[in-house]
């Protein structure tokens, strides 16, 4: 069974919100991902989102695109990401891991083969950005049959009539992308997001995470006030990109600890 549901239940019992940092597997180096995952947990991550590198990340902005390119240059593919998750699981059996990526690497491996391998490696949820619920019939079922939560996106352009359909296909949590545009875009209107979340919650009982545009403790706090989870991607990947060699983990640890303080401030 996936660790995602119990994680949200436990957080709720403590009146806390989840912090979900994102890193791209294999960035900046193949051997650095597992230590980074542990660093994320130590700094306060509740769930880890691990990006699967893809040659054509259409929905990502330049920061995550470059991370994907660095990871591919390090020859990191889907099989390596699964191996990294398995290695992480040797010492961490509690923090949920969600793989985030594009359809083609999974399609190439085969959905059934992938689901089996992912479960065995200790993956809890899978977000394939370019598989909307309309194309997920079969895919979601395969994931669910293997105890993997299929994570789906909702966006500001999603009409109310579609929310129910997305929620029905989803497991674990719903990922609301709070801005139009690719990952790493600026500006976040929390009031608008709050209104949209109220509508989403009418149709969906799953926890709702909000991502896109969260850069620091203040924005993390603002989002934690309205969402069940705060997802941070480009800001962390940017820190990895700009950190001097050898300082990557420590920089990321500082940043995530700061985001954690922001998220917890919302519960006070």
């Amino acid at each position, binding site marked *: 069974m996936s660790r995602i549901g119990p994680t949200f239940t436990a957080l709720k019992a403590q009146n806390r919100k989840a912090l979900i940092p994102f890193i791209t597997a294999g960035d900046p180096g193949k051997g650095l991902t597992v230590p980074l995952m542990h660093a994320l947990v130590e700094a306060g991550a509740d769930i880890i989102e691990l990006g699967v590198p893809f040659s054509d990340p*259409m929905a990502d902005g330049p920061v995550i695109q470059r991370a994907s390119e660095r990871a591919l240059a390090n020859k990191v593919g889907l099989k390596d990401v699964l191996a990294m998750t398995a290695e992480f699981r040797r010492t961490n059996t509690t923090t949920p891991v969600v793989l985030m990526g594009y359809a*083609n*690497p999974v*399609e190439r491996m085969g959905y059934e083969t992938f689901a089996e391998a992912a479960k065995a490696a200790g993956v809890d949820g899978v977000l394939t950005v370019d598989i909307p619920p309309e194309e997920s019939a079969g895919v979601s079922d395969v994931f669910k049959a293997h105890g993997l939560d299929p994570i789906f996106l909702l966006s500001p352009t999603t009409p109310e009539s579609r929310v129910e359909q997305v929620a029905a296909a989803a497991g674990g949590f719903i990922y609301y992308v709070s801005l139009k545009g690719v990952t790493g875009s600026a500006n976040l209107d929390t009031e608008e997001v709050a209104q949209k979340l109220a509508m989403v919650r009418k149709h969906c009982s799953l926890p709702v995470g909000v991502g896109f545009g969260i850069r620091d403790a203040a924005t993390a706090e603002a989002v934690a006030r309205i969402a069940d989870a705060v997802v941070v991607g480009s800001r962390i990947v940017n820190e990895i990109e700009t950190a001097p060699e050898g300082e990557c983990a420590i920089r990321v640890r500082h940043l995530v600890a700061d985001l954690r303080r922001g998220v917890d401030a919302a519960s006070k």
Partner: protein
Amino acid sequence: MKLTDLPDSRGHFGPYGGIFVAETLMAALDELRVEYEKARNDPAFVAEFEYELKHYVGRPSPVYHAKRLSEQYGGAQIYLKREDLNHTGAHKINNTIGQALLARRMGKKRVIAETGAGQHGVASATVAARYGMECVVYMGAEDVARQSPNVFRMKLLGATVVPVSSGSKTLKDALNEAMRDWVTNVESTFYILGTAAGPHPYPMLVRDFQCVIGRECIAQMPELTGRQPDAVVACVGGGSNAIGIFHPYIPFDGVRLIGVEAGGSGVASGKHAAPLTAGTPGVLHGFRSYLMQDENGQIIETHSVSAGLDYPGVGPEHSYLKDAGRAEYVAIDDDEALAAFHDLCRFEGIIPALESSHAVAHAKKLAPTMRKDQIILVNLSGRGDKDINTVAKISGITL
């Protein structure tokens, strides 16, 4: 179900096609699907599209009997569908007019496009000027360098050309960037997709707008020759000129449909752009189709002398027609295409696009295997003025 009834209501051609995009674009694609459905059933829309094709593009384009080329190639008679004579010099304008009329109908004032060889970029910039819309064209940095005349044309027409330096710096990266723009500006912007690929409804609507090519041929061939051709040959990158001429011919059982992919340095070398010939099915750019990919599902770099064919995917209907056995797909390498380019220049006084030269090159192979009273119809999808720098460079000449 008949082959001509596809796609289904969600854009599937058998296992191919579909809508594989991030959530942010779902509503926009749905809006486009609904609006296109209304437009195609609106006599006023259809009439305006036809008026523009006739008076602005100069349609119908002629079919021309290439007698000297046929004699030279020694076999079947070769006829050329002269899409190179269209306004802007290629078949691309058929589609951009259709999509610009849709954009106007939907109240979008800004259009974006991706381009490889620059023909679709020019055709998009042209219709944007024609209908008074802002136009941004994304083009791989490598293509910007090798297709400079078309870059200047787009600028003359008032478009902004954005060079894309990510990935392989070619058409697929331009497409990624155009998609990113669309995700960001989805409410104000209409994405004029250049080929019969991408998420539904694009493969269908681009095909529908391009089918004017095949429909004209079906009327023109009997007038000229008393019958339909034995084979129809067209180059395939994304596959819009090919599907435009193939689709109306699907019910004609006696007509072979042959798509010609870019063989680059030869299919065996791995340096090519021939997914139907040597690729495997996968998901890219919003649809499922044959792709050039490695064993990890990463898209691999393509190689072709022709920028317009330099693309790792192919329109989903072609994948379907291949599996169904209704169309055949072959590859022609750079050298063969260049030889055919020179043949058409010297024997017929027509400078063809390097893309279209691939189709001519396959006719060169096919003709000697056929009788002199048989007919090959080649879709000459574009003219080659844009390629003279490339050809000069290959010939060691500085212009």
